[in-house]
């Protein structure tokens, strides 16, 4: 056993590298590559009676998926995901900064407070938001009672409630990478900057921010991508005007029983996201 482990770890033989890679490759092939290939294939097939699939090739699902009315939904989703990402950044950066520089002994507690909502079932969270935001919900009752408003505000089933819900779910994806990159930032650099006469603001913009930029980018990508595919938030907290591409896809699979079209829509979304990431990697200056 010991001999085998040291063979595996020391890595003189090419075979040991393969052995290290094998589980991950197998996993990816079984649970990513094969399913995505099936999905792509499904997008080229025809719809049969009662939602069955007929094995005859067609491009019609893809040409339908890029019709303007569906592109409009895609653009709307980009907008929601973008706004949510910006909101998460605006809320998450100060939080991450506090966690890294100020929290001290309270850090563990703060991190737990950040993660606990994330660990609760999203359905429970969505129902709770419905209770909070409803016309006779907690928030409206509080505002009415305090006399700040005379009539209940319309909060639920609006773009506001959808962005709020998305930001609520995905903010840990923003804060954690930011926190990680701020933690890695050597504190001597900041001291050096002060020693050389830079003020707090200048140090922040010239040293702290550029050095944690990879964390900003990672946080934005990690927030943006799941937002693009989210459908539960819009389903529960949204209305007809906040119909997102995730809802459209879910609708094809579960309600309209049109799996080939749903697969084509999913493929288009996947291709756009992968292309976006690839393009970003190309233009990003080498660090």
């Amino acid at each position, binding site marked *: 056993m010991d001999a085998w482990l040291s063979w595996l770890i020391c890595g003189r033989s090419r075979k040991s590298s393969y052995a290290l890679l094998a589980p991950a490759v197998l996993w990816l092939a079984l649970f990513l590559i094969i399913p995505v290939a099936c999905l792509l294939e499904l997008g080229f097939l025809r719809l049969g009676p*009662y*939602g069955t699939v007929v094995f005859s090739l067609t491009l019609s699902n893809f040409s339908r998926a890029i019709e303007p009315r569906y592109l409009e939904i895609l653009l709307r989703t980009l907008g929601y995901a973008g706004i949510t990402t910006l909101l998460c950044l605006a809320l998450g950066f100060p939080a991450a900064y506090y966690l890294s520089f100020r929290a001290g002994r309270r850090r563990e507690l703060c991190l737990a407070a950040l993660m606990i909502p994330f660990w609760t*079932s999203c359905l429970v969270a969505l*129902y709770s938001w*419905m209770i909070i935001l409803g016309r006779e919900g*907690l928030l409206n009752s509080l505002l009415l009672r305090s006399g700040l408003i005379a009539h209940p505000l319309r909060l639920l089933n609006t773009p506001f409630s959808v962005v709020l819900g998305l930001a609520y779910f995905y903010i840990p994806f923003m804060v954690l990478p930011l926190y990680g990159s701020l933690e890695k930032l050597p504190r001597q650099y900041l001291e050096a900057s002060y020693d050389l006469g830079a003020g707090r603001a200048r140090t922040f913009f010239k040293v702290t921010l550029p050095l944690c930029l990879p964390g900003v980018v990672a946080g934005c990508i990690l927030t943006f991508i799941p937002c693009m595919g989210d459908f539960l938030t819009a389903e529960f907290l949204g209305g*007809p005007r906040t119909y997102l591409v995730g809802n459209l896809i879910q*609708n094809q699979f579960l*309600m309209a*029983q049109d799996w080939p079209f749903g697969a084509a829509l999913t493929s288009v979304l996947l291709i756009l996201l992968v292309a976006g990431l690839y393009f970003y990697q190309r233009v990003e200056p080498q660090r």
Partner: protein
Amino acid sequence: MPEPKLTRRQFLALSAVAAAAPAAFALQACDSGSEERVVNFFNWSKYIGPDTLSRFTRRTGIRVNYEEFSDEEAMFAKLRSGARGYDLAIGADYMISRFKGLNLIDPFPSGALRNIGNIDPRFRKTPYDPQDAYTVPYLWGTTGIGFNRQFLPRAPQSWRDLWDPRYQGKISMLDNSRDCVSTALLMLGYPETADDAQLEQAKKLLLSQRPLVKQYNSSTYMDSLITGDVLLAMGWSGDILQACREKPQLDYAIPREGSYLWVDNLILVRGSRHRADTLRLVDYLLEPETAAGIADAVRYATPNRAAMPLLDKSLREDPRVFPGPELSKRLRFHQQLDPATVQAWNELWSDVKVG
């Protein structure tokens, strides 16, 4: 001032979510051929009496896994995609031809149900199951309008009231092609077998309503009525009458153009490995006391004639649950549509949602 509170229904929803995870594991566990006797029942959420299943288990020792769905198209998609482990499910009248067409259900063995005679003959030899082979009617109801009397000057008379711009942002519509498209056709005076031009008009009508609609929803619209987030909701009789029980200002009406009467049926899922115990459960559900208990709890009408005298008087005499002869004339069954029409309706509905 309204008190913010967790309504019973919201509490139930929360606890259902909490209970769902272990239930899913249980379903897995009993699939692996354990000795325990069990029936896996795939039904609408909260579509049964509070002690219906525990009484069955106490009497027979057979455990029932009650798995819930909140959308029957999604349920159909799940069974169609080859989900295993379900023994008994619920299928609406208009879905039966689809289940049969894809060989997803088995006929009931003749003579297997002692209590089948309890069913009102009105619900036997139906257009969707002329031989009474595949279905045992479970509950029935109507599609209509739930509304808040406190904020509406008068009860809605017509489906057109759901198109009234005064109620912009206060209207909820069911989220399924079957109810919405057939209602739009009804308003236009067309049958469900409408041609393409008529369907196009129905689509225009539904699209014209879209700016007024707060939500397309089939599972939580009762909560929205209770919380006052919507004042008018297209919905199913029992759902809305359950909401009325919580909030007395709510009421239910069937518009003058008429509406649809639908029947939810018990169906035997093909490939079930617990057939004998499943039939025993169905027979138990057909007992008058059981059927009455279920109807009392969920406020839908029972097709079980023998259960009628046992029903809560308030339920039995409620014309919103059991419409009188005058209203019954305006109610009709959904027709069985061919696969191409079903697809056209689904696409139409998808287009309305897209806007």
